[in-house]
């Protein structure tokens, strides 16, 4: 592999990571559930692209598997599952965030700043896609923010998935070969199972409380 091509790969990965961040911001201000699911699918597609790029430019063929799994699982299967879920339980589409859109944007901006500050020791290294660590940490932080900002259970599942995307991004981009395949597979199936369980739970919550609002859960407290 010639150096220009390496550099191209690095640029490509950074670009896609930046796009992931943009998508995340859109997700934060998004008000409609179905649109949110689509945004998540888009973000996962970008992640799959990053994995593929990393595999291509580093000649690490097993990372292709990661890319494929991401494509199959997070771009196609999980969004489909969530879509079905949302349609089946016929909830009001609108999410009701704790903080309004402008405030959320401000907070997320602050979190992004924090992410870059924390990742600075690594971004100085100048390795392939080292900027992506900052993006990964930001995804993680904003994901958690998203989790407590939304009251609907399905949105929290989405937020959890974006957190997982962040973790995966860090794994793929930083270690250039990805983590060992077994680990990746493990994480992947973990998330898959978690989402399915959560989906069932959401259904049950809906049945019991006639709402998906997790605020109602405090009635369970003794």
């Amino acid at each position, binding site marked *: 592999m010639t150096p220009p091509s390496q550099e191209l790969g690095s640029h490509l990965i950074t670009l896609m990571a930046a796009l992931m961040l943009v998508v995340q911001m859109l997700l934060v201000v998004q008000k409609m559930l179905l649109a949110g699911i689509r945004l998540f699918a888009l973000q996962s597609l970008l992640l799959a692209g990053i994995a593929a790029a990393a595999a291509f430019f580093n000649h690490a063929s097993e990372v292709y598997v990661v890319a494929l799994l991401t494509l199959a699982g997070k771009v196609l299967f999980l969004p489909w599952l969530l879509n079905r879920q949302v349609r089946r339980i016929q909830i009001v589409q609108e999410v009701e965030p*704790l903080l309004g859109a402008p405030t959320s944007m401000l907070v997320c901006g602050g979190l992004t700043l*924090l992410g870059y*500050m*924390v990742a600075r020791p690594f971004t100085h290294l100048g390795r392939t896609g080292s900027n992506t660590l900052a993006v990964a940490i930001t995804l993680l*932080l904003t994901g*958690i*923010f998203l*989790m*407590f900002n939304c*009251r609907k259970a399905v949105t*929290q599942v989405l937020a959890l998935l974006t957190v997982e995307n962040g973790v995966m991004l860090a794994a793929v981009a930083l270690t250039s070969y990805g983590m060992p395949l077994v680990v990746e597979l493990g994480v992947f199936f973990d998330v898959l199972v978690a989402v399915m369980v959560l989906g069932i739970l959401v259904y049950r919550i809906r049945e019991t409380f006639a709402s998906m609002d*997790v*605020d109602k*859960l*405090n*009635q*369970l*407290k003794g």
Partner: protein
Amino acid sequence: MQSFSENWLPIGLAGYVAGVVAGLLFSRNSRVANYLSFGLGAVAALVSLVACVQGLVGGEALVSQTRQLLPSLTPIIRFSIRLDPLGLFFGVIVSLLGVALSIYSLGYARSFYGHKSVGVFGALFNTLLLATTLVFLAGNAFFFLLAWEIMALSAYCLVSFEHEREDARRGGVLFFVMSHLGTACLALGFLLLFQNANSYEFDSFRALSGQLEPGRRNAAFALFLLGFGLKAGIVPLHIWLPVAHPVAPSNVSALMSGVIIKTGIYGLARVFFEFLGTPPQWWGVTVLTIGVVSAVLGVLYALMEHDLKRLLAYHSIENIGIILMGLGASMMFLQARHPLLATMALIAGLYHTMNHAVFKGLLFLGAGAVLQAAGTRNMEDLGGLIHRMPKTAMCFLLGAVAISALPPLNGFVSEWLTYQALLQGFSVTPGLIRVLFPLSGAMLALTGALAAACFVKAFGITFLAQPRSGHARQAREVSSPMLAGQGLLAAVCVLLGLAPSLFLRVLDPVGRQLAGVAARDHLVTGSGWVLSGVAAGGGTVSTAGMTILALCLCAVPLALWWLLARRARTRIGPSWDCGLKGLTPQMEYTATGFSKPIRMIFKALFRPRREVQREYDFSPYFATTVRFESHVEEIFETRIYRPLNWLVLAVSRRLRALQAGSIQAYLIYIFITLLALLFWTL
């Protein structure tokens, strides 16, 4: 070369395990489970007893050898056994009681046939014996805490064994909570030592030997004093003892009072004398003061009890106090560089540990026999049992004499040694602090006198005169295994009293290990029959000589009778009944009445409260019904524990606001923690 005890101890331990397994396997058949599990327990205890005694008496080379009992899991958690004199000595105590209690249990467990699982009972009992033995033998802090916890948990299960009764559940929970508070302190203490020693082995703690900076060392002292003191039941950490011990089955009460609380003494001796180096003076003063306070308050509260088993439990607090007096004095002598006196005080304390285990075990077994025969622990409902269960009464009387420190039994020997140590402390300690020694001696004398009064009451009200209730009237002597268990301990009481020099051979290696001097040659004169205080001015005493003298004196009244009244006519008539028509149980002294003078003298402490309600028709002198109530305030519960309890609950109520039950709130907590950690790294 493998020594005798190394070969036999594992066999004893395996015997306990077999007892556990057998109890669980045959839990469907009560009779088989009873015989197998308690029988195996008795054999295992006997084997361990022989191994421990042999290890102490025969093995010079046994000073701190470490062996692995099981292959270790990780480098830190090692199951190492350390055969050293202190551990083996306590092993002797637990094994000795194990033999007697297992035999007793063979008969006692019959009362559970049909409505409780005897197999589970036997399994738990063997687990408790095994864990306690391992506590004394463990050579690694991890292994020690593991055994300690198994001991606490199995003891909890046994205390609450009759869980259909509410008081058993409450007592169990209180024991459980207090025990874990203590364990928390111990874990912290061991971690402190670990930070300096970089290993959890006791050997490396020993090598540390007080090379800690003073602050850390004092912190370790306080933590261990709290942790082990809780288990030992020192005042004011004693409140679980009179609640938990009486509600347990009686053989378990005997084991708890006899051995389990001694694990605290073992821990204190192990840590203060071996790990923390030469103690500063205030440590010794603290321990001695705690001992004095525990002894006096324990016996005072015991006097106020009418519940036979609660009374015995309070006496355990008293005796722990006496033991701690010995340990505290020993620590002060070590600091003042009087190793011989230190050894003597230490031996006095440990001797009393052994004695208390034996006679308190015996008394609890007697109380258990009474409880089984008469169905009540309330002394006001008992009486006259000496005619109905004479053998139990004899054994109980022996135990009562021993615990009252009357010669020639074993309680006298150890308390005499403690006196000697305390009295000689005055002349060898510089400074004003030496006033503490005669003061403690006086308090010890007070304690002994009050204990004697208390056991006059306990024995007199329970066994003498006429029965005060139908239950007591129908009492029958208990089964022969139960008598055998009591008889064995009674015999040991006599033996330890009459031949202290034999037993000092067992104690001598311990003194040499902890205080550095072999004191037996100084303590024993007159070819083994006379005990002497070590210093020139110290007294001498011979219990065997006293006994022979007493037997000779017995001849005097016989001779007088033969000389003067041989020919007199013998007339048998009723006791004097003040001119009334016959004696009834209502005329008897009650336990409350007997202790009234002491209640009045110590009014400031007890704050007695009594209520009398009488109803009458025409004249106040002819009441139709009288209701009488009398209470003694448990000052530690009302003044310390209740406010503390209230405070904890109030704080918890505030903290509960954190746990809002809302997922958002929990997520925000996680988020804030994450952010804080990230900022920390910046």
